[in-house]
Each structure stands twice: as C-alpha cells, then as structure tokens.
C-alpha cells in the first residue's frame, strides 16, 4: 500500500458499551477493536524510518514493528515485538495517556488523527492473553537474589526484567493481593482485575516469588533485607499512596472519603458486591467528588455505578486544565456525570447526627499562570453556593507514604518525601534502587514501568560488577 492510500484511511473508533447501560454496571467500557478494524487501523501507520512515536513511549515499544506485523496478520510476531519491550501491554493498552505519550508524537497527528497505538496495543495483547504463551527459557541462574518492595507496575516490571536475566527475585507486597494501583485504584470497568492477575501469574511462571502481607518498614526493614534476609540488591517501588485531604471543615463527618479509601473498598475489597463481599461502602443518591485527574474521574464514575444521581465532579480550573485522560472525561460525561468546573469546595456541611448533607463551594476565575504553567484559579467573592450530597470524596492527590522511608533514615529524600536517586536509579544506599511514584510523585503506569525496566538494567550492571 502506498503512503497516500494509507493517509486516506480514517482512524477506527473504539466500540464501547452503551453509556446509559454501563453507568449501572462494572463491566468494561471499551470492548476492543474487532479484527478487521485492527488490521485497517494498522494500515494507517506510515512505518516511519525515524519513528517519533517510539520516543514518546517510556519503555520504547517498537511501534511500527509490531503494527506492521499486525497488518501482515502475523499476530505471534506482533506479540513478541510488543512483549519484548513491555511486560504489561494489556494494561498499558488500556490505561496509558496515549494522547500525551506515544500518539502525540505520531507524524499523522498533524494533518489528521494519530495512529490509535493504544487500541492496537490492546488488540495484540488481548489476542496474546488468550492464544499465546510467549516461550520463556529460563536463563542459567546468576546466583544473585534481589528483593522488590511493592507489586505495582514499577515493581512487577523490574521483577520481570531481572528474572529474564537469571536473577532470583522476591517481591514483598503490603496488601493481600499484588497489582498496586492497577488493583486497588483503577476500577474494574477500565481495567478488569482478571488481566492484572494474569500478568502477575506470568511473572510467577518466570520464577518470580511474590509474598503478600509483608510491609517493608514494619515486617522487615531495608537493612533486614540486605543482611538477615540475604539479598544483594533491593528495588523500592512502594508508590505514592498517602492521601491528601483539603483540610476544610467537616472532613470528619461520616460519608467523607479519600479517593484511596473509596476506591480500595470498591475495587480491592469488592464493596460493589456487598453483602456477598464483606466490606461495605456508603451508597447514597447524591455524591460529589473534588479533583480533576484520573483518580477523581474513577471515583465519580464509580459512585455513578453505585447508584449516585447526580454524581458531581467539582474542579477548580476549567476543562482544558484537567489532568485526566481525555477519554475518561468524555466517558464520564456520556455517563451523566455532572461537571462543576471553576468551582472549589470550602466546607463540608453535616447533619446534627454527623452525616454529610452537602458541600459549600465557591466559584473560581482563572488568573495568571502559576508554577505549573496552568492559570491559577482565584475565588470570586460572594459566589458561594451549596451542592447537596451525602457522600463527599476527596481526590486532590497523593504523596509519598512515609512508613518505609521513616524506618530507613539512610535514604535521601526530597522536600516532598520522595526518594532521591542518581542517574542509575540508585538511592543514597548502595545496592538499593528506587522507581515509580515513590521517586516521581503520583505519575503514570507507563513511567513507573519505564523506571522498573531501567532500574533492572542498573541492578543487573551493579550485580555483574560485584
């Protein structure tokens, strides 16, 4: 096919569950491309010699490579190319913010729409999940043992890359199930948990040992791992799971949640199946969520599915500044989420018996750009009004959880409590590496995976020199 012909093909649409129907269930929103649509989309790629798109991918997926194999109907080859760079493609194909990562770099983006890299990645990964087990011949054991702290995307990726190099890896996870935010944060309707379990099982098949119910900083310290437990290196990937509250009056009322608690109850503990699952969550007819990122979007869409009408999202800037993935905002609106933009909560109102009854807000206007380059929201005097709700969820961000770092004073931290690393991802403790949200602050799945991969290479190097 000539480039000109390729240019004529329009970007394929992702088939999705009807918006009204899906706003009442937890099944996946996106169905995935059909085979014909995937081949058609794959033909849109121009196979650029200097493929810009690859630069946009933190794990360096050979995008034209796997897309070409897909276009030629060689799914096995496509899967091999993809899995070579990315151990969790079924996850990233669903949750990567492609519009700011790989797709934004695609040359086709200028004149028409970029290649739907995420859709194609998901297509190949889903095919591989059902039809293909990549051959894994265990390399000769290196005799080296590495401990990984945290079974989120950074820890899982690092473990996989180390196992490929013959190292014996043990992951310690604080919760009772591995997956990190993929499991307790991102809801079932965006990322089915069966996919996370399957990816985790693939790692187990590669010989990675995963031990749950171990909190590093409490059950073991980092020094325990390096001495008594006999590991030669450690990779810290415990995420940034400390919820931030706004600090406004009324936060102790019943019905106020951090997004972390709300989503953990629903996703990890299965509260949407209560009472078949034992953990409850407060359901109410009116729910308000404050925040503008993926976490806020996931919370408000979860509330909608638990029956909230209206489920309202409160954000202090305008739609353009929302950090959430574009697709999530679109999906949320289709599902009937009410957006209160340029609006900020200043007080949570309670009933006499201690339950939330509403939230008092202030209208905002955008002023001069602030340090983040976004225009600073400023309150409009006299604009206060109330939004009635019985559940109020705060999704304004998370910070580094100090549990581990407090028990390890040898680790250098920055002023936000994130671990400081050098160009080889090593911390101030020799042999101890770190990556993902604990280093970057709340970021993305694929950046965490990139860190996991790079750290694995550094650890391999470090151990080889030993």
């Amino acid at each position: 096919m000539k480039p000109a012909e390729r240019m004529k093909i329009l970007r394929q649409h992702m088939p999705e569950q009807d918006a009204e129907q899906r706003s009442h269930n937890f099944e996946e929103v996106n169905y995935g491309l059909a085979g014909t649509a995937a081949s058609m989309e794959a033909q849109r790629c121009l196979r650029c010699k200097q493929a810009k798109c690859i630069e946009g991918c933190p794990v360096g997926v050979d995008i034209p490579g796997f897309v070409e194999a897909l276009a030629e109907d060689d799914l096995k080859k496509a899967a091999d190319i993809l899995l070579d760079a990315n151990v969790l493609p079924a996850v990233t194909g669903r949750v990567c913010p492609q519009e700011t990562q790989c797709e934004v770099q695609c040359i086709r983006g200028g004149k028409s729409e970029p290649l739907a890299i995420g859709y194609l990645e998901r297509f190949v990964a889903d095919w591989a999940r059902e039809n293909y087990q990549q051959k894994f011949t265990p390399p000769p054991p290196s005799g080296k043992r590495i401990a990984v702290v945290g079974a989120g995307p950074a820890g899982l990726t690092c473990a996989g890359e180390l196992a490929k190099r013959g190292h014996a890896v043990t992951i310690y996870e604080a919760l009772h199930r591995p997956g990190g935010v993929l499991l307790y944060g991102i809801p079932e309707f965006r990322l089915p948990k069966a996919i996370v379990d399957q990816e985790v099982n693939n790692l187990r098949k590669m010989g990675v040992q995963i031990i749950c119910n171990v909190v590093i900083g409490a059950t073991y310290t980092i020094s325990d791992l390096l001495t008594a437990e006999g590991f030669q290196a450690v990779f810290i990937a415990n995420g940034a799971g400390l919820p931030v509250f706004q600090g406004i009056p009324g936060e102790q009322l019943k019905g106020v949640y951090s997004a972390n608690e709300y989503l953990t109850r629903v996703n990890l503990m299965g509260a949407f199946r209560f009472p078949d699952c034992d953990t409850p969550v407060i359901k109410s007819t009116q729910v308000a969520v404050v925040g503008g990122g993926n976490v806020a979007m996931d919370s408000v869409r979860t509330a909608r599915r638990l029956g909230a009408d209206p489920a309202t999202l409160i954000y202090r800037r305008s739609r353009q500044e929302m950090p959430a993935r574009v697709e999530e905002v679109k999906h949320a609106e289709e599902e009937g989420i009410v957006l209160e933009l340029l609006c900020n909560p200043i007080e949570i109102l309670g009933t006499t018996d201690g339950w939330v009854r509403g939230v008092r807000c202030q209208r905002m206007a955008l002023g001069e750009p602030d340090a983040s380059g976004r225009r600073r929201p400023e309150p409009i005097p006299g604009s206060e009004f109330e939004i009635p709700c019985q559940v109020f969820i705060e999704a304004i961000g998370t910070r580094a959880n100090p549990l581990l770092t407090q028990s390890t004073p040898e680790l250098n931290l920055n002023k936000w409590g994130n671990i400081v690393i050098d160009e080889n991802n090593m911390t101030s403790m020799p042999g101890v590496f770190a990556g993902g949200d604990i280093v970057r602050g709340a970021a993305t799945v694929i950046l965490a995976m990139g860190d996991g991969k790079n750290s694995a290479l550094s650890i391999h190097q470090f151990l080889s020199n030993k």
Partner: protein
Amino acid sequence: MFPILEAKWLAPKVRWITVAAPRVATKHLPGHFVIVRVSEHGERIPLTIADSDSASGTITLVVQVLGATTQQLCALKEGQAILDVVGPLGKATEMKNFGHVVLVGGGVGTAVIHPQAKALKNCGNYVSAVIGGRSQSYVILESELRSICDAVYPCTDDGSYGYHGFVTGKLGELIADQQQPVHAVITAGPVPMMRAIANLTREHHLHTIASLNPIMVDGTGMCGGCRVTIAGQTQFACVDGPEFDAHQVDFTELADRLSAYRPQEQLSWQQLQNLNHECRLNQLK
C-alpha cells in the same frame, strides 16, 4: 495461610487464638496490631497482638465476637488457618520507667495491656492492672496478669467478682492512695470507658495514654479511613497511633465515626446467621 495452633474461649464470645506468623512474631512490640482477613471475600480487620513468642514464631490474638468478621474468625479451630495476617502495624507503646503505672483494660482491651504489662515491668515500673468486665465470666487474662503485675484489680459491673463497679471507680481509689502514688495511666477498651478514664485523670494531671480503635482498611496509612482528631489535628491511627495522649483525643468524634456502617454491619450479620442456619439444616439432612 497462617495456621492456628491453639484456639479456646476465654469468656463468653471472647476467643484466644494463637497463630503461626513468624515474621510478625519476630518484630512484635507492645502496642502493635495486625490486620487480618479470614476468607476470600472477607473484610480486613485490625486486632491487637496480645502476646508473641519469637522462638516458636507465634502471635496470640484475643478476639471478641461483635459482627460478621469476628464471628467467622472465632469459629475457626485448631488446625484451620487464617487467610491473611499482616503486621506488626502501628507505633509501639512508649516504654520507660514512669514509677507506678496503672493499666486499665475493659473487655478485650485487657488483651492490649497484657504485653504492655510485661514490658513495663521489665523497665522497672511498679505495675498495677485494673481489668473490667460485665460479670465474673467476662474478666479475662487475670491469672496471666497476676504472674506479671505487682497488683491486679478485677472489677465487675454487677459485683459478682472483685471490685463492684466500673474500672474508673477502682482507678479513682488508686489515684487517691497516698502510699503508692500513680505516675501514668494506660488504657484500652470501649470508647465510653476510655473517655471516662481520660476525664478522671485530667483532673489529676496524670499522663494518660489511650489505645484507639477506629475502623481501618489497609492499616498502612494509605486510605485515611482511620483518621482521628488529636489536639485539633487530624492523625491516622494506624501509623501515627493507635496510642495517643488520652487528654487530647476527641472521643465523641471517634464514637460517632465507629457507627458509620451500622446498617451494613447488621445486614452482614444477618446474612451470616442465615448461612449458618442453612448449614445446620444441611447437616441434619
């Protein structure tokens, strides 16, 4: 899986469970707790470590049946296992020589003061324990505490055993005793009891520590569900506590937040009773 090595009833609806959890046992200090999950669809609940033995790798939990999860846990027998046990969590009790320390335990709160008594004794304190129950059969761990403490005062609401009245009454007597002045109080038990103790010792300017029991999920500072107000500041009980200066605790708020899930808890309880009923019917067939 965490195998149960010993399980017995200490009092009506209060069970002593010794479970193999070697990693936790090695690191346990008084004041620590674990989070436990009994079954695949189960809730995560916090329980104080009442005792531990690092040599045999075991910890002991003392559990009161209150709702669905504690009932399932207390139905487990020797040879069965708990699905998940994670810990030790929370800050350890401040250990030093106070002089005369009075430990006040109400109901299963007595399990919290048990390891504290041992450690405080080792620090050279004179240790008294005031332990309360509704009636004689609800007073737990008395002989264990007698083998550790300098003095043990059981109290019962109905006067069937020991001191007749609430633990606050007995504590008031001890504070008034000039022969053996009290220097510090540590308390664990139902919220109204801890509040009453705090009110009493505040008058006497007595250093007092209370072990709080808010609803928890992860126990590692990740969810914020366990937040309590201490001296007007929000704190996460699982990582900043669970022990705090009793005079600074907002007990009204704590009690109120504990009631957040009452309708759901009743539903869970009912469902479990129906299930148990069906099982028994099936056994009859």
